[in-house]
């Protein structure tokens, strides 16, 4: 596979290193001279110096081939957005993956149709929420392209769904239960599965259906 990695900071350099180890062909692009010089010792001809939002820099890195994947991993969200737009729309790169530095910029990535994105802050927050013992509904995964999301719901004693079979629940249209985790063991949720207090239930649903799902599972 041929990959262009834009941004040679901690994230970009480590991703490039891993890809190289897996035997992939790649070009790493880094703008800062000090960083570039350090990277050159390790990556030799596979690192190029330049601004990856400049067309000639991307072309020098072989974007017109085009690569199988472009990874926009710089520390600047606007740069990452422009790199992805150029790669996809001008050069027809089939897959781009963007790093989101500031979670508040996620909406802009979405607006410009840049997907998938990865944001460390959001991932950490999702994990923290997961650890909170009395969380009710948390988002685990957003499948933007599919317009679906996977959430986790914790059933408690007062939940209207506790003691009910899945087939008896009036789940909203566009929502399904995936699995039930009980005492450390997960099972696929089927019609005959009975929910109990303490269960952690995974559900897949269309964004915006959370409230309806909450109503059915958590409170009447």
């Amino acid at each position, binding site marked *: 596979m041929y990959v262009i990695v834009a941004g040679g900071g901690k994230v970009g350099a480590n991703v490039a290193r891993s890809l190289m180890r897996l035997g992939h062909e790649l070009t790493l692009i880094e703008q800062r001279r000090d960083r570039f010089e350090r990277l050159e010792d390790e990556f030799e001809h596979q690192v190029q110096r330049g601004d990856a939002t*400049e067309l000639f820099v991307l072309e020098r890195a072989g974007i017109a081939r085009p690569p199988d994947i472009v990874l926009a991993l710089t520390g600047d969200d606007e740069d990452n*957005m422009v790199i992805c737009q150029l790669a996809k729309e001008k050069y027809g790169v089939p897959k781009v993956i963007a790093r989101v530095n500031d979670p508040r*910029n996620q909406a802009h990535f979405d607006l410009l149709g840049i997907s998938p994105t990865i944001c460390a802050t959001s991932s950490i927050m999702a994990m923290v929420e997961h650890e909170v013992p009395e969380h009710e509904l948390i988002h685990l995964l957003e499948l933007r392209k599919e317009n679906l999301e996977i959430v986790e719901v914790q059933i408690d004693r007062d939940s209207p769904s506790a003691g009910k079979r899945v087939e008896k629940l009036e789940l909203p249209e566009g929502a399904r239960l995936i699995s039930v985790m009980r005492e450390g063991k997960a099972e696929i949720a089927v019609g005959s599965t009975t929910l109990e207090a303490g269960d952690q239930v995974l559900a897949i649903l269309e964004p915006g259906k959370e409230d309806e799902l909450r109503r059915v599972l958590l409170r009447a």
Partner: protein
Amino acid sequence: MKAVVIGCGRVGSSISLQLQREGWDVSVVDENEDALSRLGEHWPGVFLVGHGMDTDLLREAGIEEADAVVVATDGDNTNIVIGQVAQKRFGVGCVVTRVLDPARARLYRERGMRTISPTEVAIGELMEAVRACEVPTPTQVVHR
């Protein structure tokens, strides 16, 4: 008529002052509060401190009612993104975006943005100025 100007450097501030003199209702956004001084001592319009990528701030500046948005921060990619946000998210009909790099300015122009590249303009003007000089054409130069 309402205009929002993002970036209050030399370009943004001059445009803001000119629009205001022409009767526009102008809101200016800049990251640096010192930029207000570029608008003179009695700026009658709105001036907000913050980043142009912040949609709440843009709303506060009145982007939802704006007839025109001028994006002129010192970052090409920042301008390209804000310009698209103004156009696509807020549906502003007239969005003018400054992009110094002629290559990116051209590309986004082809994709329906109103981009202006001062570099492109300068190259054109400089070339015109050179052509306007009265110099002997190369064939007239006599080598001794």
